[in-house]
């Protein structure tokens, strides 16, 4: 990217690892507050239709980050699609569930809380808390708390996605965003006479896109 402003913007843009730290602090805090065995944040990858472990606190944490699971099945998939939080306990009574989870993560929980990560109109991923201390007696207050954590995690996840998209533009790989960058570059370097009508056209386009 030759435009110096992009380079300047890229320089002050938080790096991906800073967003990751934010996600990590959310799962660490969720794990501590719920006294849980583990907590994790999944990001939904639209291109591959999979859920990816983006941040994990607890057992097997290091190995799990980056692991992908299919989005269409299982509890996390259901929560992602239906946008409904839920809590399951007595999971070890269910051999099929235990086996599926153990094969993926090496850790079989007794109980699980899961909430969708909703930001604006999108379901960005899922927050899961495994084996919270009070698993025998979940309360509505804990569901509320899970919802609050999920709201925070959704904002952090959205920031991470935006940072990745911005990085892709800087690296010249972005899809829609790089088209916008190319447009900006053409305006900057293009014919003087054409610039004014082109700007009018872009303003009209912006209004069209903003219209309800």
């Amino acid at each position, binding site marked *: 990217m030759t435009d110096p402003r992009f380079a300047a913007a890229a320089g002050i843009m938080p790096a991906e690892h800073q967003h990751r730290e934010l996600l990590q602090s959310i799962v660490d805090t969720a794990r501590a507050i719920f006294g849980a065995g583990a907590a994790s944040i999944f990001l939904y990858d639209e291109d591959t*239709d999979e859920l990816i472990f983006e941040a994990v606190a607890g057992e097997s944490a290091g190995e799990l980050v980056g692991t992908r699971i299919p989005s*269409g099945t299982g509890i996390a998939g259901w929560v992602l*699609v239906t*946008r409904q939080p839920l809590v399951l306990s007595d999971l070890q009574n269910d051999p099929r569930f235990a086996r599926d989870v153990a094969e993926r993560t090496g850790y079989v929980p007794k109980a699980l809380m899961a909430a969708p990560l909703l930001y604006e109109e999108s379901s960005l991923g899922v927050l899961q808390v495994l084996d919270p201390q009070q698993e025998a007696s979940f*309360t*509505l207050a804990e569901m509320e708390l899970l919802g609050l954590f999920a709201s925070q995690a959704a904002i952090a996840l959205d920031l991470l996605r935006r940072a990745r998209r911005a990085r892709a533009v800087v690296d010249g790989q972005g899809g829609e965003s790089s088209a916008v960058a190319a447009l900006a570059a053409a305006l900057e370097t293009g014919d003087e006479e054409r610039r004014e009508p082109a700007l009018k056209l872009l303003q009209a386009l912006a209004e069209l896109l903003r219209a309800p």
Partner: protein
Amino acid sequence: MTGGLPAWSLPAASRAQIDLELEWPERVTSDWAFGGSTGAGVRVCILDSGVERNHPLVGTVEQSVVVVAAGDGYDVVEDEEGDLSGHGTACAGIVRALAPECSLHSVRVLGAGYTGSGDILLGGLEWAVGQRFDVINMSLSTTKSKFAGFLHELVDSAYFGRTIIVASAHNMPVVSYPWRFSSVISVGCHDEEDPRLLYANPEPPVEFFARGVGVEVAWPGGGTLKVTGNSFATPHVSAMCALALAKHPRLAPFQLKSVLYHTAANVGGAP
């Protein structure tokens, strides 16, 4: 309108043709509404992740279909998969426990891949409304505002077609549909153990609270799990609707909602 009656106006000469039986007691009690009912003959649709066949706590599922993407639209075909997450089986088991003789139908809208699932969900609901089920249990919602208009039309047509849609309310700070629409019954959860205990919410859009904390439910593999969430409160209300409809088949959705209101523990609550 059927039977040659005008849909938009009523000539005095046609008055006799629209006589409706009044089936409403002086006082609506739980006994009048649900007492002795098993839900027999009422068709309840579980719009969800599928329902496991032959689960001992679910029993017979009359029909299992899955909604799949097909070109710009969708197809509805026989479902051979059963339940892909466990949730639909849990909801079906809750309905079966309260309304043991109702007829259960599964419409699976999950598992065909997430991309475009909003369309699959809408397609499944459209198909279910077209089947004129008595009750549609919908423990799911969408946050996409572009679907809101179509969903609104769909749930209104269900309401006028005498299909009651019971939908899980959202307990997170986002706007989602269709539970917010007044032509459906929206449900959140209370933390008491009585499966037939309902509370009416004086501050909608969540209209009723039903049991939804620590509920033991049917789970795929023939076993059970304990679950918590609004999505498990919803089938309790679906089952109560099935009980009332089995006893009083002529109740229209607006009357059914009144029955739930009058029998809620914080309103009349009379046995």
